[in-house]
């Protein structure tokens, strides 16, 4: 399975690309260009059209209008196979890997073998080793994919593209799954690839990453190019403004709040993950009234299972949970809600709302059985209507009416609805899991302000997020979770990115503090 020597691409140009989906103009006459040796960042909010544009370049979608030129030659790219042939590789947000196969088999998939129809994995392994060494990306070609950490899986993805002779690499939000240290290593690899003459497109909505790795930035908003500019000539504030279309507060203001007694107490909590292995392994935490406790960590380290266990959706195998002094371990969600718990789930479309029901019905999912919204077995529609209209106004939820099917709302507005539902009963404890993931900057800003304001009501909040900036901005204290355990809890003012990053990689707190201090 030896591939042709990587042919160089000097310049790839997308001209006047238009792509329509039913009801949406995803790309509106977009012009974009990338050259060999540069990292060109494509910046924009979710839904700005970044991924659509790149999927067109990779042959996953066909443009309705426009042209793709490689080294000034117009080309048609009808499938991923075509784009691979042209020397284009794409690293997807969700890895395109087969977990039950080895690294080498994943690389070999879809390639012609040197001894067709038989596999030639030995040849593949040798070449993977060479490539891995050349770009200093350590990967064992014999390892089974499911055994690899997420960062390693990403390296396999990149090797897969390089193996196929990719001269242009499209990286779709590649840092979302990495710790800060891994991001640094990853950027070194990207630089090296660019220096060797590869062209790289870096899709992101994280401003500081774009600023630190790219040579040029193109900002997309609502399917249109706002501007392409040299990274050296811009700054965070300008990029944020271009991306959102108005001035943005990058940091929320926090009023100091007097902390009350502990409202949520977790003692040595254990729970199993989906595969039947312990995912939460002896977590003990205390959250006080008026406090936000942030839980940072790379995804898949038990945060999801912890949130579900606290919300009553997963059984605790050991340990206790107390809310306001009452032992609520093993309570079903409806009792927990009655006890004052609110939960903003990570998978909002799956666990948080019902797409085909109306805004109003979704708003009432948790409280419809309680007065004043229910009288006996009957629903009190006037009370429900009044409540919903008030929340829609209070929380700035953009919807034509409370009777609109929820599926018609944007992600940000759906998240605001869940927030409204959770906060409307002034919870004693709030579990907020990835509250702004996939949400536009405007809504994120609003949700952050609300979570901060909720402290003044005496709510004890657990904020679980993979976005380290979010955790650092909002939390009073930051706990880092790694492999189901809490590696330590750092006070807000003492937390540095380096220390948190080391803890996210499994280094205990004291040691991490020592290494960076």
């Amino acid at each position, binding site marked *: 399975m030896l591939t042709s020597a990587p042919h160089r691409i000097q310049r790839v140009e997308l001209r006047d690309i238009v792509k329509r989906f039913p009801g949406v103009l995803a790309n509106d006459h977009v012009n974009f260009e990338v050259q060999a040796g540069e990292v060109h960042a494509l910046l924009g909010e979710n839904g700005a059209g970044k991924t659509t544009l790149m*999927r067109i370049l990779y042959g*996953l*979608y066909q443009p309705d209008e426009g042209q793709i030129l490689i080294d000034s030659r117009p080309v048609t790219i009808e499938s991923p*196979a075509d784009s*691979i042939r042209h020397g284009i590789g794409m690293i997807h947000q969700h890895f395109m*890997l087969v977990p039950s196969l080895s690294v080498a088999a994943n690389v070999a998939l*879809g390639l012609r073998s040197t001894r067709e129809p*038989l596999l030639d994995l030995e040849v593949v392994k040798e070449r993977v080793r060479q490539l891995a060494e050349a770009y200093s990306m350590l990967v064992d070609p014999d390892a089974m994919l499911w055994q690899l950490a997420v960062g390693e899986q990403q390296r396999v993805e990149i090797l897969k593209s390089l193996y196929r002779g990719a001269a242009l690499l499209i990286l779709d939000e590649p840092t979302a799954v990495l710790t800060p240290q891994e991001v640094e290593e990853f950027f070194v690899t990207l630089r090296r690839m660019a220096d060797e003459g590869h062209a790289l497109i870096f899709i992101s909505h994280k401003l500081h990453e774009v600023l630190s790795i790219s040579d040029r930035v193109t900002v997309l908003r609502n399917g249109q190019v706002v501007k392409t500019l040299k990274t050296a000539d811009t700054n965070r504030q300008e990029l944020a403004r271009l991306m959102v279309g108005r001035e943005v507060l990058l940091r929320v203001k926090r009023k100091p709040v007097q902390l009350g007694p502990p409202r949520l107490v977790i003692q040595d909590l254990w729970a199993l993950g989906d595969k039947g292995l312990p995912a939460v392994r002896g977590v003990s935490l205390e959250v006080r009234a008026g406090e936000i406790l942030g839980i940072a960590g790379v995804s898949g380290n038990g945060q999801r299972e912890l949130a579900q266990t606290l919300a009553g959706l997963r059984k605790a195998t050991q340990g206790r949970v107390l809310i306001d002094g009452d032992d609520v371990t093993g309570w079903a969600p409806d009792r927990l809600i009655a006890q004052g718990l609110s939960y903003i789930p990570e998978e909002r479309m799956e666990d948080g709302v019902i797409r085909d029901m109306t805004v109003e019905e979704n708003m009432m999912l948790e409280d419809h059985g309680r007065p004043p919204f229910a009288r006996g077995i009957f629903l009190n529609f006037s009370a429900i209507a009044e409540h919903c209209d008030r929340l829609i106004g209070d929380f700035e939820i953009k919807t034509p009416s409370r009777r609109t099917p929820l599926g018609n709302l944007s992600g940000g507005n759906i998240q605001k609805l869940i927030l409204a539902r959770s906060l409307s009963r002034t919870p004693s404890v709030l579990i907020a899991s990835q509250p702004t993931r996939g949400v536009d900057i405007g809504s994120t800003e609003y949700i952050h302000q609300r979570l901060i304001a909720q402290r003044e009501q005496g709510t004890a909040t657990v904020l679980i997020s993979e976005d380290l900036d979010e955790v650092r901005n909002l939390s009073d204290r930051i706990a880092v979770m790694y492999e189901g355990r809490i590696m330590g809890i750092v006070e807000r003012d003492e937390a540095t990115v380096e220390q948190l990053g080391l803890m996210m990689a499994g280094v205990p707190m004291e040691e991490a503090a020592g290494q960076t201090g």
Partner: protein
Amino acid sequence: MIQDLLAPAVLIGIASSGIRLATPYLYATIGETFGQLSGVLNLGVEGIMLMGAYSGFYVTFKTGNPVLGLLAAIVVGGLMGLGMAIISVTFQAEQGISGIGVYLFGLGMSDLLFQKSLGTVETVSGFQPVEIPFLSQIPVLGQIFFRHNLLVYAAFLLVPVAWFVINKTTWGLKIQAVGQNPAAADALGVSVSAVRYATVTLGGVLSGIAGASLSIGLLNVFQQNLTSGMGFIAVALVYFGGWSPVGVLLGSLLFSLVNALQNWVQVLGIPIPSDFAVMMPYVLTILALVFAVRKVTQPAALTKPFERGEG
């Protein structure tokens, strides 16, 4: 009476007929393994087996040549597999439901054709046992393993062949990838549809042969619902065998031995009500699934149609 079962001649008889009875299970399970590995659950195996059994029998009855009968079963099985592929891959129908449709079609159609063309139960001279020189003369083992018809030998040869194809060829790699992560395979230029069409059609061919191995190999008759649930047991055995040819071989042997045992229980007149004896394989199916399923990793995309650009 029970001790009669332990007489050497009887034990050899049970083992030998166990090997023979494994034949239809082997063809059907290996065919279904290919389909399921690529992500398509074909519940219509039973119906395809019935059509294969009928067409194989009818052509053999008319021509006197079981090889032609086998070819007919292959063509009919392949066409039905292709039909299932069209329904589940191109039209993306719910696989559990469409498979039941294929089963009911095969059940009804094979009986209709049987009633119209033959009307009564006839017998044919199907594939005859072939004693393998020297090997068949080995005491005990020769009797158990080397005095069967060609379809039996071929079924057992299919196991290593299938293992090799799945694990050592580029096509096998594509099958596994398409069943585990079709989006990944697609992104690397593998045609998910082409792979699934091929595996489901192959599964149909092998199911057709499985049916023929009954009607012109083991029993040499055809009647309504000849397979009586073997196709469904085969689907269960694929889960039991953990989607590996060796696993389905073990499962097939387990079931055929239990079947052989219950036959001999009846032959010897051991005073167990025959209904209980007949029940054994089915009870075993349920038990096997209860205890086997959880351990293995099933193809992640099993029963899920693939459409580009969803994720």
